[in-house]
């Protein structure tokens, strides 16, 4: 792995990403060719005796088709020790090629961006931060809402000259709804105003989520973002609930899902079902949720429990020893009351397949790796 430092030094804008479920990587980003950032994307396709084959996925449009074909041919013929070696080879080749001369005239857009930005900062005097990027390609801004929460947004500028609506909200942290995504606009002030209106509308939602984060032991998400509209909340040593809120309909009854051994889940579900009829569209939703669950307060998880160094912590998968696998939490729980170990569906299925377990319809069953009692999980595609 000695080459990694050189890789970062020579190609700081190149990113490596592992391809899911394989030992190969995707390589994408920009490299400097003749003082210009050139976009490139490669895929590692095979590893033979420690040397790898790569395939060109995309080359910057600044180079014409024939250059891309030449690179493809080089990659087909050769294999490489590491990522650095293949990038060096491509870089050397591109340095000798002539890029298409493609100097567009962006003056019009530059003028408009600068004008709009200055109007924007004059109009919204309560902005917390605001910044126009040096190359005028984007604007970042942040603002504090009526409850002192900070919200930031990134607005990018479209230089393709295909449309007059050059400003587009590209990064923000709010729950999304398909029916009202932000549309590009030619007026920065109008666009930002839409963003503010959305924040205003979501105030009850933010309030409720913060109430969860303050008053309950949240197991997941680890670091909740504003766009995360669910919380997995600790109810006891072996039981938790996932509460999902509709951000745009906070006062509606939320969705509950209980995770834990059957007998505990059943007792909570029964409670919930008995109380469902009493739900009224009330001002204090948090209290409403407590009433639904028949709780005075959400229990707090004792912190001393975490201090000793457990190899597999509560709720973690007993096969991969972690909580999250591809963003998923362990969802299968051994039904043996003395065991109650957690497993990711993927891990347990993988073990059952490896140990030739029985498949019946859509479920596969075998012995619990911990207690050896029979358990089953859904078959994965």
């Amino acid at each position, binding site marked *: *792995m000695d080459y*990694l430092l050189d890789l970062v030094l020579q190609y700081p804008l190149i990113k*490596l*990403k*592992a391809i899911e479920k394989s*030992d190969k*990587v995707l390589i994408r980003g920009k490299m400097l060719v003749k003082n210009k950032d050139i976009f490139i994307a490669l895929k590692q396709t095979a590893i033979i005796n420690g040397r790898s084959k790569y395939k060109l996925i995309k080359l910057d449009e600044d180079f014409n088709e024939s250059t891309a074909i030449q690179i493809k041919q080089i990659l087909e013929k050769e294999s490489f020790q590491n990522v650095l070696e293949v990038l060096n080879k491509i870089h050397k080749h591109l340095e000798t090629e002539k890029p298409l001369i493609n100097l567009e005239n962006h003056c019009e857009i530059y003028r408009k961006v600068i004008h709009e930005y200055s109007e924007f900062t004059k109009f919204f005097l309560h902005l917390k931060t605001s910044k126009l990027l040096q190359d005028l390609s984007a604007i970042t801004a942040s603002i504090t809402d009526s409850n002192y929460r900070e919200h930031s947004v990134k607005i990018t500028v479209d230089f393709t000259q295909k449309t007059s609506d050059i400003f587009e909200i590209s990064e923000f942290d709010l729950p999304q709804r398909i029916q009202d995504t932000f549309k590009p606009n030619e007026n920065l002030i109008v666009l930002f105003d839409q963003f503010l209106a959305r924040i205003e509308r979501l105030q009850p939602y933010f309030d409720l989520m913060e109430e969860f984060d303050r008053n309950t032991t949240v197991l997941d998400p680890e670091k909740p973002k504003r766009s995360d509209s669910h919380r997995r909340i600790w109810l006891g040593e072996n039981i938790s609930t996932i509460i999902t809120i509709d951000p745009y309909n906070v006062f509606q009854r939320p969705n509950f899902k209980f995770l834990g051994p059957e007998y505990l889940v059943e007792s909570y579900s029964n409670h919930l079902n008995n109380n469902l009829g009493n739900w009224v569209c009330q001002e204090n939703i948090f209290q409403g949720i407590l009433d639904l669950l028949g709780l005075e307060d959400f229990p707090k998880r004792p912190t001393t429990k975490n201090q000793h*160094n457990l*190899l597999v912590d509560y709720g973690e998968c*007993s*096969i*991969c*020893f*972690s909580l999250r*696998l591809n963003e998923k939490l362990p969802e299968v729980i051994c039904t043996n009351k003395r065991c109650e*170990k957690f497993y990711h569906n993927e*891990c347990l299925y*993988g*073990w059952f397949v*490896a140990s030739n377990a029985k498949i019946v319809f859509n479920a596969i069953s075998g012995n*619990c*790796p*911990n207690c*050896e009692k029979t358990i089953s999980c859904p078959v994965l595609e």
Partner: protein
Amino acid sequence: MTSAMSPSERRLQKELMSLIKDPPPGVSVDAEQAEQNLLQWTIHMEGATGTLYEGESFQLQFKFSNKYPFDSPEVTFVGSNIPVHPHVYSNGHICLSILTDDWSPALSVQAVCLSIVSMLSSCREKQQPPDNAFYVKTCNKNPKKTKWWYHDDSV
């Protein structure tokens, strides 16, 4: 590069950290070597006090495939001192069912070490396996290729 770690590497890393921080009594891992190559560890093991192996120390080698924990680790005694035990051959191979047929992914390096410690501790007479000479001459280098016959659980 943490994002590029496979679940298998992540688990090994976690096991290693746990073994370094909180090892079972008499067991310690060569951290530096394991950190360099996560797929091959050397573990030092002390004979427990009050047993036939008191005062002796042994070295265990763990080799993991990239299918770990679905695939059991390859565990052998290495180094100059191989314990004399009815289930340990003089070439370091160990006859222990959890290392092959009875392996489960819920087991861990720590669990395997504890099993070996207890296997040694319950021994009443230091003695090589009866078929040692023949086995050592004919066996595969990899003990997992051996078709073991698990005779008894008493030692």
